[in-house]
């Protein structure tokens, strides 16, 4: 070979060597960076991560020394091998670094702990006629005391004008007073339109005001967080779905890591509750608290339910759409086909069609529309809460079945911009590892998710409204039942407090023929004093298209329903009790007809019209008092609806006497239950607690024959009517509790499950006559042969006794063959709103 050729080849080799060396350095540095960033997740499995580090180290060293050998030997084959390995590692390093960077970037966005800065915007809102800030000089400007945006607005206004500030305790009153010209302008959050556009009847009011100017500032906000060991201590997470500044979905989730019980308590966004950060804790819709910051919502719900909230998890509308689309869609169970609203900011865009059926595939917009829908159901928002949970579960199911890393990175990208939480990565990883260990012990490896006992509930309440006389506006609200708050509180506390009182019965019975119905945490209605809405009926009439003549409403179609307005449907269309009530009307027991309002002489309890009882105090003699269903206290010589405290109708004769301490002293059901004992229906005696084989139903021990399959979703169910828009359940006057029992709080582990005990003649434990037993066989004891359901099979196997339709249970078929097929869910991104 000539010297020139040799020289040229050497030069080429030298150039290549330098290039390859540079690439090698980049690969080494890239892999080191990748391993370093992955260290934050090493708690998933320290051993595996150490092994990975060792393997990568060996690979890199082998590559480096291969390259050195290539330089020395100058063999082409060695050179080619080095090139190939370098390229492979470069690709791995590049992709790994990208994935790690994406994960860490999004995790940083999602996980928020300690202090952070956020932009707060204040809008100066006024009615038409005021176009400039200078027009407000010397005028009255309202503001909500304690609100950060109000402080920003005031400080900026003070720099420009001199105004009189009028303090308000809540934003709704401020808005209605602005509309009523009680103030000239108001300092509102910049998203105030979003707060009020969902309130029926506020459209005109909103159109009458506009933002003159707005101010924004960065503020430092701090959200409290917990350092609980969530693998050994029960903890709570507040899950929020936020839209336009409102928290439209509010769900408190508690997790007990020993029992693996998860409670989910939904609170309607329109719940009228004391807002923690309002001056004097004035009341407002729960959804409005979020405008003041997430800590305000946390504090408000803590006060409402009287529980500590350890963490939060928040998402918005777009998060649902983006995440579902990133996953390639989900499947849902939808009983009714309908067209729902899209995710755009403008309301009324009913352009998203959702087909009916089981396991119906839907995209992001469809999933969101399904979760937002409420008008289709008689129970309205309450059924929507159940739908929200269903969508969340299906999203998580799909995420865990996904094996495409790119898809998961896209999901993380979608979540990064739309989800925040204050649970740290370390806590999450620790919980994940802990759950994997539990899953290894669980019997049913094909349905790992069933190792969680998921208890769904909601804070029930009744529809009402807050009336502004000045602006003639009514804001629809939900007033929670105190009893429901207490019942949900008790359920939550039981799950969180490992020092709770033990009250599980120390025995067990079961029959494969019967389905078990878990107890409900909260009743649908409670016997409580109702706060009547002050909204005049004329308002409901005129805002729903009717004409008010001063005393009655003439509706163009349908009928007028008090506290609702003109409804399309007519009570006369219904001849059956349940259908009548499901459509939002009332069943008149006196005439056995379906009515919109109860006739004179009857009183509505929201579902029935029943004969109105005269005020007991009008009866002045014992006979009249008792004959009209009241109680007579001989000591005071007065008539009462119920015996005064400390006394009881012990003998069932209508006369009050000192409360008896022993069950046997009570001869009638009412006094027995009123004294806190149980009435054994079969034996007709008063007992301390219900005997085995019976169930405590509002103080009466009965053999249960209920058969509906257990539900883990909140109790409301969609109406069975095929109508696409039945009237939501009105319930302005909740029905009185059917139980006079002083214990309206059901616990997660109440009296024994409703498993009927079949009679000896029914249950074939007695041998056939053809087989003579060697030893006489005593048939099993039937506690209540007189209440035997007969052939228990018929009443139970189909899972229903003709009562309510049970919604889809949570987490069925949730995890199969997924990349994380042993993961179980703890958090639910309930970001499904409206």
């Amino acid at each position, binding site marked *: 070979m000539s010297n020139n050729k040799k020289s040229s080849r050497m030069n080429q080799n030298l150039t290549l*060597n330098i290039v390859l060396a540079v690439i090698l350095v980049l690969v080494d540095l890239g892999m*080191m960076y990748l391993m370093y960033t992955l260290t934050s997740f090493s708690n998933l499995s320290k051993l595996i991560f150490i092994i990975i580090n060792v393997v990568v180290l060996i690979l*890199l060293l082998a590559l480096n020394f291969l390259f050195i050998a290539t330089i020395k030997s100058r063999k082409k084959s060695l050179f080619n091998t080095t090139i190939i390995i370098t390229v492979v590692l470069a690709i791995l390093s590049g992709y790994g670094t990208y994935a790690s960077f994406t994960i860490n970037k999004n995790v940083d966005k999602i996980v928020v702990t300690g202090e952070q800065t956020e932009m707060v915007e204040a809008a100066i809102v006024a009615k038409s006629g005021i176009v400039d800030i200078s027009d407000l000089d010397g005028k009255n400007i309202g503001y909500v005391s304690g609100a950060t945006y109000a402080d920003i607005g005031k400080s900026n206004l003070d720099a420009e004008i001199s105004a009189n500030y009028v303090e308000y305790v809540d934003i709704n009153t401020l808005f209605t007073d602005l509309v009523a010209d009680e103030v000239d302008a108001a300092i509102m959050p910049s998203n105030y339109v979003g707060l009020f556009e969902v309130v029926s009847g506020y459209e005109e009011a909103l159109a009458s005001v506009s933002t003159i100017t707005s101010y924004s500032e960065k503020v430092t906000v701090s959200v409290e967080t917990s350092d609980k060991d969530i693998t050994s201590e029960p903890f709570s997470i507040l899950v929020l779905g936020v839209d336009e500044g409102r928290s439209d979905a509010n769900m408190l989730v508690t997790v007990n890591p*020993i029992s693996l019980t998860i409670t989910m308590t939904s609170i309607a966004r329109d719940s009228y509750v004391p807002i923690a950060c309002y001056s004097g804790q004035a009341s407002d819709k729960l959804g409005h608290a979020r405008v003041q910051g997430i800590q305000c919502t946390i504090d408000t719900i803590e006060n409402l339910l009287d529980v500590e909230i350890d963490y939060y998890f928040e998402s918005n509308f777009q998060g649902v759409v983006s995440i579902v689309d990133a996953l390639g869609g989900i499947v849902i169970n939808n009983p009714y086909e309908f067209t729902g609203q899209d995710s755009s900011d403008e309301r009324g865009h009913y352009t998203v069609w959702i087909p009916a059926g089981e396991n119906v595939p839907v995209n992001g917009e469809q999933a969101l529309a399904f979760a937002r829908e409420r008008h289709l159901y008689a129970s309205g928002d309450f059924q929507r809460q159940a739908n929200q949970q269903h969508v969340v579960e299906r999203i998580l199911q799909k995420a865990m079945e996904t094996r495409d890393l790119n898809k998961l990175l896209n999901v993380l990208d979608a979540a990064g911009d739309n989800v925040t939480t204050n649970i740290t990565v370390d806590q999450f990883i620790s919980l994940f590892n802990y759950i994997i260990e539990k899953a290894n012990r669980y019997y049913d490896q094909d349905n790992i998710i069933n190792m969680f*006992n998921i208890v769904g509930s909601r804070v029930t309440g009744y529809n009402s409204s807050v009336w502004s006389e000045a602006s003639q506006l009514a804001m629809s609200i939900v007033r929670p039942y105190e009893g429901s708050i207490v019942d949900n509180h008790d359920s939550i506390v039981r799950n969180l407090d490992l020092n709770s009182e033990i009250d*599980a019965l120390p025995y067990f*019975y079961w029959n494969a023929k019967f389905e078990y119905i878990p107890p409900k945490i909260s009743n649908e209605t409670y016997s409580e004093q109702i706060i009547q809405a002050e909204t005049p009926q004329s308002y409901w009439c005129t805002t729903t298209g009717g004409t008010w003549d001063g005393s009655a409403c003439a509706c163009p179609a349908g009928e007028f329903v008090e506290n609702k307005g003109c409804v399309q449907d007519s009570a006369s269309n219904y001849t059956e009790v349940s259908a009548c009530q499901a459509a939002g009307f009332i069943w008149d027991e006196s005439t056995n007809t379906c009515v919109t309002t109860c006739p004179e002489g009857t009183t509505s309890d929201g579902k029935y019209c029943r004969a109105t009882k005269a005020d007991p105090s009008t009866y002045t003699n014992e006979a009249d008092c008792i004959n009209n269903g009241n109680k007579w206290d001989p000591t005071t010589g007065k008539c009462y609806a119920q015996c005064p405290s400390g006394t009881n109708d012990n003998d069932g004769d209508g006369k009050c006497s000192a409360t008896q301490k022993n069950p046997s002293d009570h001869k009638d059901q009412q006094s027995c239950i009123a004294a806190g004992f149980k009435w054994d229906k079969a034996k007709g005696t008063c007992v301390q607690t219900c005997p085995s084989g019976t169930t405590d139903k509002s103080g009466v021990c009965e053999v249960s024959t209920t058969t509906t399959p257990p539900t883990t979703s909140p109790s409301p169910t969609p109406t069975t009517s095929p109508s696409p828009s039945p009237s939501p359940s009105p319930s302005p006057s909740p029905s009185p509790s059917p139980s006079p029992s002083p214990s309206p709080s059901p616990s997660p582990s109440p009296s024994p499950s409703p498993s009927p005990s079949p009679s000896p003649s029914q249950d074939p434990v007695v041998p056939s006559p053809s087989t003579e037993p060697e*030893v006489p066989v005593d048939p099993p*004891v039937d506690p209540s042969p007189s209440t035997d359901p007969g052939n228990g*099979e018929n009443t139970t196997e189909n899972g229903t006794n003709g009562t309510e339709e049970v919604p889809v249970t949570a987490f069925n078929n949730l995890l199969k063959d997924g990349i994380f097929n042993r993961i179980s869910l703890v958090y639910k991104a309930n970001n499904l709103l409206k």
Partner: protein
Amino acid sequence: MTKQTKRVPLSPEEKARRRKAKKVNNNITFGIIILSVVVIAFFIFNIFSIGLKKSESGSGTTLAVDKGQKLSNDQYEIGNNPTDVQKEYFNELSNAVEANDPEKIAEYVVKSFVSDYYTWTNKDGNYEVGGVQYIFGTKFTAFQEEARWTFYSDLDLYITQYGRENLIEVASVETSQLQPGATSTINGEEYEGYYLEANWTYKDSSAIDVSKFQNRAYFVVVNNNGRYEITEVQPLGNDLTGGETANE
């Protein structure tokens, strides 16, 4: 005679280029060696970091599954961390299965169930309901759910307040009144099997009053396609007053 390549002497410039190339290559080699040392140092540091890293949370423990105690036969598998009593009854069950003795199978299905279900000392939590493997096939999920709402509902409280080792543990099980001819109709299909009663005792506990817990019941065990499974568990007589809890 072979032709020999004539070596051309190198020019001074060529010699200089070659010296430079050699020097550059040597520098590259040296650089790669230094890089390798840095890589080694980094990975040693990283591995130690991982090993020494403490999690901010995660002291929760789970009972380790002792795989060495996992007994099974053609039809059944014993529960996690079985007690000696459980193992004894399961071995008898395995013998009965092998001998294809239905009455013995039914007897030891019940004994195995009782010794598993009514023993809490080997349960990690409420989710680990014992004896589900002996429950009628399609109903074990429902059975488990009902157990978690009733008998097992406060197991987390018992474990926390009294210690797992102080909880109930079945010491012995006696069966009686075994009678064939029992049937259960489930999902429209009739299954034949046995009725039998069981009485059991618990080991003493210094923390809880074991006498308050259920200690007898009758069972219906049916033949479900060759596998004997429990379809009914009912307490016997009026032993239980109800409403009393068993904690001291």
